[in-house]
């Protein structure tokens, strides 16, 4: 393999080595909200033409996209949020990936050792390891450039091994800026996958915003009742997290239609994902039963975000509606449903 990093005699920076390794591992996407300390990796991803950067609007969304991607593709998804407040915002999504056994690698800058000993007094100081010790499957900490490639490999292997789950790799951020040659014969990275967990073999992936929606009447009228059995949702069950999760499913399972069911209230809290999807080239359609109370809220939401609006005609048979969902193999379809009582 070509080694584009060793331009002339300049050794690569830690960040460039990270970007190269992710590329060698065949990573497609890096889901990331920035902070100063992740910038060297962002810059390097661009330089090495590495994985595509997806920048959502919150760290939580970045991490939930990765959960969906990991479940749909069977390959580890990569999250790269900033340290401190960035990691703070991941908490629910790390737990969610653990509960759904989604293979996700969280690669995060962290404070250097001298600062970690007094982390409470450090600007944006948070003890990541302690904070997420219950939620992560495994946590690794890298303080030296020599360890970068082996630890990234270990994180990938662990994320996917046995019962898959979220593995965190903290990298002391100053080493990202430092230049150091890769030593010794580099082992080829191995691309590891496992069978996709999200509705394997299904011809349509139905995602639910939360478990209470299984009783929604709209699902039946939209012909999706039969898809419920194989429906998927974030491991941490609670409304308000389905949209980024479903976008992750979409990216991880090209060519299979992905339909997300959520309530109008939940949709209004997740419009950022509609905007991000559109900006990333994933067209979004928002659907609701025409003239329903859901439609009254969903239509203006579609207009505000530039999503396509699909009022489902009450005269259409469930089969016809499902067939329409089924044709939408490229984008993400969001079906706004009624909130079942109770």
């Amino acid at each position, binding site marked *: 393999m070509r080694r584009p990093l060793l331009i002339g005699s300049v050794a690569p920076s830690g960040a460039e080595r990270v970007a190269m390794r992710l590329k060698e591992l065949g990573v497609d996407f890096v889901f990331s909200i920035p902070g100063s300390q992740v910038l060297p990796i962002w810059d390097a991803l661009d330089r090495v033409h590495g994985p595509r950067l997806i920048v959502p609007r*919150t760290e939580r969304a970045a991490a939930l996209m990765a959960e969906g991607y990991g479940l749909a593709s069977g390959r580890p998804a990569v999250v790269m949020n900033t340290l401190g407040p960035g990691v703070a915002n991941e908490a629910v999504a790390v737990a969610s990936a653990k509960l759904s056994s989604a293979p996700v690698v969280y690669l995060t800058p962290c404070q*250097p050792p001298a600062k970690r000993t007094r982390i409470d007094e450090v600007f944006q100081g948070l003890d990541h390891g302690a904070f997420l010790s219950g939620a992560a499957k495994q946590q690794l900490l890298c303080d030296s450039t020599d360890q970068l490639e082996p630890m990234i490999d270990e994180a990938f292997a662990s994320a996917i091994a046995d019962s898959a789950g979220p593995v965190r790799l903290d990298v002391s951020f100053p080493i990202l800026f430092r230049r150091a040659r890769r030593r010794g014969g580099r082992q080829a990275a191995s691309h590891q996958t496992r069978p996709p967990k999200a509705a394997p073999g299904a011809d349509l992936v139905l995602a639910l915003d939360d478990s209470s929606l299984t009783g929604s009447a709209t699902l039946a009228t939209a012909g999706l009742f039969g898809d419920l059995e194989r429906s998927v949702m974030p491991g941490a069950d609670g*409304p308000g997290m389905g949209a980024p999760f479903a976008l992750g499913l979409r990216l991880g399972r090209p060519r299979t239609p992905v339909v997300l069911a959520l309530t109008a209230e939940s949709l209004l809290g997740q*419009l950022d994902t509609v905007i991000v999807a559109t900006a990333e080239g994933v067209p979004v359609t928002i659907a609701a039963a025409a003239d329903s109370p859901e439609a009254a809220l969903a239509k203006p939401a579609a207009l505000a975000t530039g999503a396509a609006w699909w009022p489902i005609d009450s005269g259409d048979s469930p089969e016809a509606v499902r067939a329409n969902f089924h044709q939408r193999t490229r984008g993400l379809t969001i079906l706004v449903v009624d909130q079942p009582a109770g």
Partner: protein
Amino acid sequence: MATEAELSKTAELPVLASGSLALEIGAIAMRDPQAAAHAADGAARASGRPAVVTARGIADVLRVASGLVTASGDRKPVIAVLQLSDTEREVALPAIETASRSTLIVEPGESAERLAERCNESLQLSAPVSLVLNRDSDLAAVVKAVAANCAIRESVDSQAEVGGSVDLKPAFEELREAKKPVILLGSGALSTTALESIAALARLWQAPVCLTFSATSMAADTLDRCLALFGADIPLLPAGTVPWTNALTRADHLLALGSGLSEADWFGLSDAKLVRAPVTRVALNPGTDGIADRTVDIDAGVFAKAFAAEIVRGGALTRDNWVERFSEARSKWSGLVDEEAHRAGDSDRLSAPLAAREIVSAAPANAILVGEGGAAGMWLASYAWLRPLIVPSQHASIGASIPMAAGAALAEPDRPIWAVVGDGAFFYCARELAGLAERGVPIAVFVFDDRSWNAIRLVQTLFFRHRTIGTDLPEVDYRSHAELHGCETIRVRTPSDLAQALSLAQEPRNKPLVVDIRVEKGSIPFVGANLILAELDGALGPLAGSAALGGLLAAAKDRPALAATLRVTAGALRK
């Protein structure tokens, strides 16, 4: 539990929750559990009094934990009452324990009253406090007991005489020798009695008073008291400003009162080795910091009172004109900062500094201003000079200003609340606007629409050769989003649009007003430039070798206030 209007009349603490739980226990309803935590934090910051957030189950409790991190960084008196089963605890408890400064696990059979008592004890020592209940406990009863019984006590010690337990003589002797003394006033020294003693000491000792970053955003009533006590003769210098930096770097002795001396307290100046003077630190239960040359474990007010008495007895050596110099520097600085705001825009271009300046000057005098960690928030802080201001300092988190404003409105219903949010950060908590609209809360929210994650783009501009990868945002119509959430809205494109929006903001209304302000891309706030020091401390070596220094100074061409700030940054980079 009480609404905005009712709360002001009772001693009961505000209680926030999300979803159906809010309904179940009669709390103020937020859409998202993390926003509920930020709102409790905002209430605590605005008023200095505790506020309660409650949640149940992994998905909600962990989102509360995310919000608590910001409160915890600034040690705000938030009380989280959280309910988890044993298996849920395995996943979520470590996050709660790390995000809180005290965690209390409910004991089987413990009464709600007893638990509230334990909570109150912890609250005095180290907030935020989390109470973790099992699924059998009566959550509503505990929340009720906590809301009714918890409060922050005025420091008891400040009434006490200086006992024989701490020998203050050696500290006094050193401090009296100072010719250029500076007091660094932290948030642990803001009780009424402490402030009185410290103001008296500053006057006698002729020492300028630098506020730490967290004290700069003290509770609104405390600030009113502070301004009355210090008057015009003792310069009170807000964190991050150039006179503040000059005072800290030129002092020959620093007396840190009630400060944790964390990096955020003084913007990484310590870590950049820019402060050379010896530091005497006075605080109750100070812990270790590795920075102070001498640490005295006593209430800061008690110390100030005793030291003032010592000066009355034996005098001090403070140079003539030392303190006056900072009064002059202070007015010169506000002049420079004003000038930059005007220089940055013209009649049809609106810059972020100009917008921030106009917002601050149009806000009613008693208004509480709410900011966050992005560039827009930094601009607000630059102009909100000694105005009531809420901004997360330790974590400089983004995305919390809307729910923090909601909490501030709850705790201080008689004060107008004006918040600034970056366009990048807008969606973190935009949906909370709906609840404010439903409850008729008239906050004003100014969205700084610069089509970028500017504070980050700024680092790319300075340190990554203008390779602004990933930090541009697509065009979004924030106004129509705010309308979806039931708000009154107005769009601003020019300075005259802004004037119109500001007079609208001053008018009474019964819902939030969201102002979508289109500002120019790429502004470089003063405060931000120094914040980079704290943020990238540890990697400054490699950066100094990059084009950074030249880039920094080029950025400051024709901008005297920015140039003055950047000189500090450049100095640190050279080291």
